[in-house]
């Protein structure tokens, strides 16, 4: 299958690969997986006191589209509020990366991962 140039770029030069200490203040961790293809995705955000995402990291074991989707979303969420980040739609990711229909689920996984990271952050920071 032919990957789009943007997928290949994110796959070959993934942005923001790595981890934060999940116990650290302001860090939210989202873990998601897709049983059908066996992909596993960890996405973490570091949020400032005023609720803005300062930094994001990911680690994904999966196909090129899954890696590109998580790499892209870590770029997108930086500078956004947690609520804005939670509102990102998988269709935006799929469109940006020109994902073919069989790879749409990779973008769904990235959306689910950011949602999970934000809800982990919110749970830890109930005021």
């Amino acid at each position: 299958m032919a990957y789009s140039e943007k997928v290949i770029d994110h796959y070959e030069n993934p942005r923001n690969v790595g981890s934060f200490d999940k116990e650290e203040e302001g860090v939210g961790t989202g873990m998601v997986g897709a049983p059908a293809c066996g992909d596993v995705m960890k996405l973490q955000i570091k949020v400032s006191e005023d609720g803005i995402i300062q930094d994001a990291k990911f680690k994904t074991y999966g196909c090129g589209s899954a890696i590109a989707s998580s790499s892209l979303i870590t770029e997108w969420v930086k500078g956004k509020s947690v609520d804005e980040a939670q509102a990102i739609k998988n269709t935006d990711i799929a469109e940006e990366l020109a994902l073919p229909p069989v790879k749409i689920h990779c973008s769904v996984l990235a959306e689910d991962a950011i949602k999970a990271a934000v809800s982990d952050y919110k749970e830890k920071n109930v005021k």
Partner: protein
Amino acid sequence: MKNPFELFGLEPNFLLDEQELSQKLRNMLQSVHPDRFASGSDQEQLAAMQKTTQINDAYGVLKSPVRRAQALLQLKAGLDGSKEVTVKDPVFLMQQLELREELETLSAKKDMGGLMDFAETIESMEDAQIASINELFQQEGENQLLESDKILTEIYKLQFLRKTLMDIEAAEEKILG
């Protein structure tokens, strides 16, 4: 169309005798072998060919623990376990992530012995997972309903282990060239 169990004349059970299954496969494939229909009509030849495809497809389902369990869930509970879903169990997923990291390290070191040991570890995890799926299927009937959602979750876990094992095989092949 008959379900895979029916086609092979088997009770719809998760546990199955692999030797019996491959024996049945051989017999069934022989009965529809093209040589038998060499002098038959085009229609007979086509029917035999279609039957061969059906038999092979059903065998593919039955011999794979994941696909067999999915077929049983479909049969008993009308549940489609092959849909693309997102799993969110953090403890299980963190463990899977660590296993993939271990594989990555072994693969980078080209540690063939380590990879083989690692494959054994995953295989025994797979066996344990298959055993617990079997246990859940066997519970049905003893005054209990089938816990189909729970079984579905356990099949998902088996799918992640399967993927790790496939990745180990790919890493080994890459080292061997």
